[in-house]
């Protein structure tokens, strides 16, 4: 009797063994990733977050990039590897505090694989280390501050598809010095990493070329009263004013500059941060004939016209700012990297290693995007930078549209007024 029971037990155990061995299952996924893995159950979405400025003076900058990224998802049919893509996030207000708060909130959500953002370099400075320690890849469509990809300070999970201001500031300075042939310029920045860095590059290049900076002033981003600072600058008699700041303060300068004695005729130039119809609206008539440096939309590759049509149809607006294509490319780089590293179980479950995802993004090479051929370098710069100079015409102003054709770009024919 006892032996029978024993035999039965042995038999059951043996059968169980055979059953497991013969089952058609692959060995269960084990995570070997240095940072950790994200497991996505069959019906769960792939989660990509955004940290963008969606309110306040610079809201168009954020809306524009959000739309660009959303179109990238639409172009994939809303699905990657059979999973829907969830794209939600935080309004980071274009500030350092906002960027930090958004990063902390997003990093607390363990389902987030990657982040598209931030818009403003000031937000990226505190946010990049938070994402890096959480193992979340962040690709910025519009940060241009030089410091963010400085090899000494670089955060390994930070990337950008926007150009570094090393290019933009230098292009602006060359245009003023060599094309407009003006030798005395003044600059205003707002103390943010973006504006200060850009103004600094402008100053260095301009002085190297032989120009003279008559004033290098700073304001705070919330200032409305620009007449005191403009009066100070007028006392130094500049022939040109460069202010690579944001829409709120930038529009105030445009609106008030012609009322300040000595500044009635001085030509002005802004940068990509104010290259938006909102700037024309807020700045008023004085923005006519103003110069801007911004990504060269005219060299955007094949798909851009198509993309623009989708954008205008879906959101029922002209393009709002210059970085939608960079956001589109950023989102596509993320999607391509996910497709490359994800391990798929037969039931559809996805396993994605965070370090592996980061490495896949870092290995991006000759990626055919709207903004050109993107290759990520060791510092996280993935852009294919093309900067051009634009000028607002009367027609642009009355239609509230930014110009789509540049008047000058480096290497191109000389500017003729």
């Amino acid at each position, binding site marked *: 009797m006892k032996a029978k029971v024993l035999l039965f037990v042995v038999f059951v155990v043996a059968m169980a063994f055979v059953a497991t061995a013969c089952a058609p299952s692959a060995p269960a996924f084990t995570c070997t990733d240095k940072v950790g893995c994200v497991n996505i159950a069959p019906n769960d979405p792939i989660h990509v977050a955004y940290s963008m400025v*969606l*309110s*306040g*003076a610079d*809201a*168009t900058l954020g809306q524009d990039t959000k739309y660009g990224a959303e179109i990238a998802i639409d172009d994939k049919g809303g699905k990657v590897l059979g999973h829907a893509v969830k794209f939600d996030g935080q309004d980071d207000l274009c500030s350092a505090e906002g960027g930090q708060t958004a990063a902390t909130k997003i990093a607390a959500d363990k389902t987030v694989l990657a982040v598209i953002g931030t818009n403003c370099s000031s937000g990226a400075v505190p946010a990049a280390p938070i994402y890096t320690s959480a193992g979340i890849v962040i690709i910025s469509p519009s940060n241009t501050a030089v410091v963010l990809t400085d090899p000494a300070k670089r955060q390994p999970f930070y990337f950008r598809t926007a150009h570094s201001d090393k290019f933009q500031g230098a292009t602006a300075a060359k245009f003023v010095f060599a094309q407009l042939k003006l030798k005395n310029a003044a600059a205003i920045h*707002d*103390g943010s990493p973006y504006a200060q860095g850009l103004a600094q590059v402008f100053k260095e290049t301009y002085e190297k070329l032989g120009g003279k900076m008559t004033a*290098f*002033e*700073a*304001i*705070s981003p*919330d200032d*409305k*009263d620009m*007449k*005191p*600072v403009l*009066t*100070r600058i*007028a*006392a130094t008699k500049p022939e040109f004013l460069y202010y690579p700041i944001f*829409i*709120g303060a930038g*529009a*105030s300068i445009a*609106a*008030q500059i012609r*009322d*300040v*004695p000595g500044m009635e005729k001085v030509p002005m130039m802004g940068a990509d941060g104010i290259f938006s119809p*909102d700037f024309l*609206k*807020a*700045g*008023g*008539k004085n923005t006519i004939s103003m110069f801007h440096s911004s990504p060269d939309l005219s060299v955007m590759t094949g798909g851009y016209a198509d993309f623009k049509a989708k954008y205008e149809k879906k959101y029922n607006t002209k393009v709002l700012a210059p970085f939608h294509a960079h956001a589109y490319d950023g989102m596509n780089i993320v999607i391509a990297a996910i497709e490359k590293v994800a391990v798929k179980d037969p039931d559809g479950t996805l396993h994605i290693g965070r370090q592996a995802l980061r490495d896949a993004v870092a290995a991006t090479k000759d990626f055919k995007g709207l903004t050109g051929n993107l290759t990520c370098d060791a510092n996280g710069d993935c852009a294919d930078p093309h900067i051009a100079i634009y000028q607002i015409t009367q027609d642009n102003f009355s239609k509230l549209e930014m110009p789509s054709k540049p008047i000058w770009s480096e290497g191109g024919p000389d500017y003729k007024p």
Partner: protein
Amino acid sequence: MLRRLSERINATDVVMFLIGGSILALVLVGSVATLTSGKYSAAQWFDLIVFGVALGGIYALIALGYTMVYGILRMINFAHSEVFMSGPFTAYFLADAWGRSGFLDENPVVCLLAIFVLAMAISLIVAVLLERIAYRPLRFAPRLVPLITAIGASFFLQYFFRGLYGPNIKPYPEIAALKPYLRFGDFRIQYVQILVIVAAALMMAGLQLIVQRTRVGKAMRAVAEDKQTAALMGIDVDSIIVLTFVIGGALAGAAGVLYALMFRQVSFIMGFIPGIKAFTAAVLGGIGNIPGAMVGGLFLGVIESLGPSLFLDGLGIPAPQQLKDAIAFTLLVLVLIFRPSGILGEKLAEKKA
């Protein structure tokens, strides 16, 4: 003799006076250096002062709202900056429509009046609703409770108006009639600045007249001094408090339109910075004191406009304009060191102690 002196002066006072004294010395050295360098012409100094007075007038009008509510309820109405925003932000739509159709340039006086009336009415309604919904139920709660409520109400109003009118900044139309300058010799003032200064002065004079010369004003002063006793004397305390919010709200709405006319931008967060500045002005002048708010506002406006060029330029500090807020708040600290109750705060402090 020496011993008595050392007993009377303690170490803190000495340190405070040293700090204050050295700042004053720096200011003097900087100002003399700037003035002797001759970098700015007299006309430019005059311009800077005019900007300061105009901005100061606006600060003063907002500060009156803070100070009147503080005088009567002993609370800081932090949602006042949103009262300031609500009026001009709503009136923007009227101004913009008229600006587009050209009606604004044809009838500037009528239009301006209508814009003012609309903005003041909206601000006034917001202020009264705020009092009725957010503050009155808490009148007998501990002092911190209404303060926190005020901050909450401030956020609520900001995001309410954001939802209502959108998150972007909106440009106020430029009124052609206000663009020219009044010139005398080298000096000049733009009409819009004259309007701002004159309107602010008129409203402040009107308020002073109401408070000092009318029965209602007398009742307000009585309530500010002692609510219980005032009630026993037959004053309807509730309606006096509502009246305070009405006046404060209307002044804030008017200040908002003046602000929008000068800087030609409105948005749902436009109240935040001027609100903080006006609160500073109210403390500077002596909170709870009406002439104090006026003096504080003007003082702050002029210092902000003039300070960076006058004090810091001569000291060779690069890009001093961004330090204007630092100057304003250093000034606040200095005033609070030497006159803890504010510039004109003494009389009130004795009464309320």
